[in-house]
């Protein structure tokens, strides 16, 4: 399903707001949205909420034969699924560009930085090693999928426990969780990615873009770091040109953000450990807010209310008289009636036409709200010229009602510019 295109006015609004250092949800330029981390019932299942973006990561393991050139190392496999439930733009089964990009970025971020000790995953060298598979599913796309996916993946890896194995000579026994306590993976460091979006050819920069901001951005810079200030991966995408000091600035911001997020992840893991030890219930169902009649929770929407009353008064004063509505049904000629003509179109596309007529008809009227003014005139003309009614919007159909005395003017109210051109040319002909 194709995603609805972004209208030009929305795009202009977003860009204008960014120029004024304002974001849609009231955040500052370098602020992250609220991050919430919850865990599922099994070890290795993790949900991350980054604002409204929601992703789920699940880690699983399997004993397989290792690669030939690395016989004593385990295998890590990453997979990001862009599920169609996340966004209408994602299609089932097709490996879109975004999917490839996210997959490769996650792989580079986690695998090339060697955050997991793969040698500890070796059971029998050359024969049996653990394959750790991380599946990340996008549940809701509200921007910045990469960051959410990286947080989810590394948290799930930290949370995961693999079964214990015992080797007696040639025999390998895998103990179930009931027989022996499963072992956590040995993780050296936690790489977390931070995304920066650039606007207006690199003049403006935002951290953690939401979905709307992502649509109007020029390009994206992703920096993955760990809390020891080691950069694990940098990737610039989109057609932007960066300068070296921009990259340095971004890396400094990223180090701050990464330490905050790492703290958050650590706390979440601690909490979960406590809950599990205390025997409390944990899991996805528990983390959802209870559906109770008395529990009404509404998030505060940040709305700027600084000079609302003055502005509102201004608008009310300047607004003209609302257009008069035509009584329906319109009965122009005995025997012919029409119901539901609808309001005049306010697109202002036929301003040229209207201007010509205005100059000939009206003089010296105040032009406060030009559009409303023209609307009124148009209505007056329509009432006086009551012989022409529109039955349909089609360009081909011209409704001309012939009267013996009154002159006939065919009139088309089209909604497109070339129709307008045709109408004005027809007008010219008729005149």
């Amino acid at each position, binding site marked *: 399903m194709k995603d609805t295109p972004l209208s030009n006015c929305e795009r202009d609004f977003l860009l204008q707001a960014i120029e004024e250092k304002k974001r849609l949800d009231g955040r500052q330029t370098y602020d992250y949205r609220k991050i919430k981390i919850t865990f599922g019932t099994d070890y290795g299942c993790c949900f991350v909420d980054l604002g409204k973006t929601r992703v789920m990561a699940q880690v699983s393991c399997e004993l397989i034969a290792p690669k030939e050139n690395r016989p004593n190392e385990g295998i890590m496999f990453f997979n990001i699924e862009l599920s169609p439930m996340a966004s209408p733009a994602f299609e089932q089964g097709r490996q879109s560009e975004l999917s490839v990009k996210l997959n490769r970025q996650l792989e580079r971020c986690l695998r*090339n930085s060697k955050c997991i000790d793969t040698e500890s995953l070796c059971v029998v060298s050359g024969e049996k090693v653990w394959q750790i598979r991380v599946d990340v599913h996008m549940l809701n796309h509200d921007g910045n999928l990469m960051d959410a996916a990286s947080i989810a993946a590394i948290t799930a890896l930290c949370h995961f426990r693999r079964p214990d194995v015992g080797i007696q000579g040639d025999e390998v026994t895998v103990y179930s969780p009931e027989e022996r306590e499963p072992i956590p993976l040995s993780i050296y460091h936690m790489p977390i990615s931070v995304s920066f979006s650039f606007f207006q050819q690199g003049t403006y920069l935002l951290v953690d873009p939401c979905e709307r901001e992502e649509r109007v951005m020029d390009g994206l810079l992703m920096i993955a770091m760990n809390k020891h200030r080691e950069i694990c*991966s940098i*990737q610039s995408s989109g057609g932007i040109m960066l300068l070296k000091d921009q990259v340095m600035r971004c890396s400094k911001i990223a180090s701050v953000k990464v330490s905050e997020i790492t703290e958050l992840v650590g706390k979440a893991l601690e909490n979960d450990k406590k809950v599990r030890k205390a025997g409390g219930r944990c899991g996805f169902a528990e983390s959802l807010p209870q559906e109770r009649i008395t529990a009404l929770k509404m998030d505060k929407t940040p709305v700027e209310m600084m000079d609302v009353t003055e502005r509102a008064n201004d608008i009310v004063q300047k607004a003209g008289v609302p257009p008069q509505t035509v009584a329906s049904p319109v009965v122009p000629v005995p025997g012919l009636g029409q119901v539901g003509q609808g309001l005049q179109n306010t697109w202002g596309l036929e301003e040229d036409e209207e201007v010509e007529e205005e100059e000939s008809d009206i003089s010296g009227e105040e032009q406060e709200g030009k559009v409303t003014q023209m609307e009124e005139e148009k209505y007056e003309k329509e009432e006086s010229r009551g012989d022409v009614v529109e039955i349909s919007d089609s360009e081909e159909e011209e409704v001309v009602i012939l009267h013996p005395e009154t002159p006939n003017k065919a009139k088309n109210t089209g909604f497109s510019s070339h129709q307008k051109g045709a109408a004005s040319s027809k007008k010219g002909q008729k005149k």
Partner: protein
Amino acid sequence: MNSVAALCLNIPDIKRCIQTEEDRTVTVRTLLLLSLWSCRSSSPGGAFGYVHSAADTWGVALAVRLPFIRSLRKNMAGLELLSDQGYRLDGRKAAELRKVQARMGVFAQADGSAYLEQGNTKALAVVYGPHEIRGSRSRALHDRAVINCQYSMATFSTAERKRRPHGDRKSTEMSLHLKQTFEAAVMTQLYPRSQIDIYVKILQSDGGNYSVCVNAATLAVIDAGIPMRDYVCACTVGFVDETPLADLCYAEESGGVSSLALALLPRGGQIALLQMDARLHQDHLEALIEAAMTACKGVSKVLDEVVRQHLQEVSSLTGE
């Protein structure tokens, strides 16, 4: 590191048994060998830690006597990436680029083509366009040209035969990166509703695949006569021992060195693409990017030379 600590404890015992200096040297050498053998799979930093403790116990003089300490800058293959004289595996200095040889106008059928060799990495680039959009008209952009890139590696390009030359994730990612790089550089506003195809093939891969592709594609685009803002030059740099190494070869890349690939428009110093893998401390980032930019500027000079020479040849042939 646990195995290293265990070996350290044995030193005081051994010290008592050694009478002559020669014995001492031999023993420490053996110990070092043992430590290196046990640390062979961990990063070079592990072995280094042991040597420091040995020096502390035995005095600094011993450290000077032992030649093995210097050779601890080893990667997994056991080769020195940077010797103390400053020479790399292939005898280059740290900031030296590989030899670049290039030819433009290699194929008659294509609008533009180029062949570029950078050391042992060889790439062919072919450009078709600008022409009408093929396939779905919906992909056409009303105000600029669409750039379509395809990157593939020949099956014989790597040491082991490549089973899937294109269509796998790495190739798709590389194609996307090339597209992104050239979208920034080519003046696509001059050709609305059309398409420019860039095909790059690696014939022999010896490190720096992306950079060589970008350089070859730049020459091909120039050969096709498509206007660009500036030369797009790319280079892969690595960081070993606090020194940036320019233009990595395969052995250096696979040695776990942090590598940074940079595509630059030299005149304005604008970065079209920045990609880095493996761990690097934030403080070294600036130095690495600086080194990459210098290397790219060097490449741009070479490419400029190639273009001018080609132009001279062509104009002399046509008798201008």
